[in-house]
């Protein structure tokens, strides 16, 4: 089974704070994704990547940067956190190509006070 590990599991910061969420997958998947989950919206796509050095913009990118440093590692950066970014963040990976089956991490709960 694919392994996707997110850290931290929980994070509390203040408005204007700088936050980095980390995600590592160990199954040599090409694609990685960051989603946020809020009540009433399901999971919404923030950014995704086809491979190391690649970045694609998702549907709710404002206020977020992302960087794919290696095939295994995908980071989500909030440089000036706002209370509207309080959410549950999920990272996922997939093989890509004709197989987009998603494998999820356990999520990171972020609170911006």
């Amino acid at each position: 089974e694919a392994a996707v590990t997110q850290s931290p599991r929980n994070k509390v910061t203040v408005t204007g704070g700088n936050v980095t969420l980390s995600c590592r997958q160990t199954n040599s998947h090409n694609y990685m994704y960051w989603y946020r989950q809020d009540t009433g919206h399901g999971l919404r796509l923030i950014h995704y990547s086809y491979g190391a050095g690649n970045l694609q913009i998702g549907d709710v990118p404002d206020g977020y940067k992302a960087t794919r440093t290696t095939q295994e590692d995908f980071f989500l950066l909030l440089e000036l956190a706002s209370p509207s970014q309080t959410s549950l963040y999920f990272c996922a990976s997939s093989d890509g190509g004709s197989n987009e089956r998603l494998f999820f991490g356990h999520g990171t709960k972020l609170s911006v006070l």
Partner: protein
Amino acid sequence: GDQVEQSPSALSLHEGTDSALRCNFTTTMRSVQWFRQNSRGSLISLFYLASGTKENGRLKSAFDSKERRYSTLHIRDAQLEDSGTYFCAAEAGNNNAPRFGAGTKLTVKP
């Protein structure tokens, strides 16, 4: 705009009954997948379909193979442990990422 429309948004069942959840897509999709989110927030993969149907125990999912514009998830003989929020996600191809519906919150009562 939203590509994946999920219905119903909430559903309450008694144990032993059957139900069907549905996802409609505003465009042709290449694949669909279904998840259940448990009370701890973990997303459990149920099915991944590029076409046709798949069955696993009391769960069965179908993906419209002609128009590729909807998918269904059938739950037979609902049990208490089926409670949770069910999500579908669909991907349009051409390196597009999967997009999610807003979810169906299922409550199974004794």
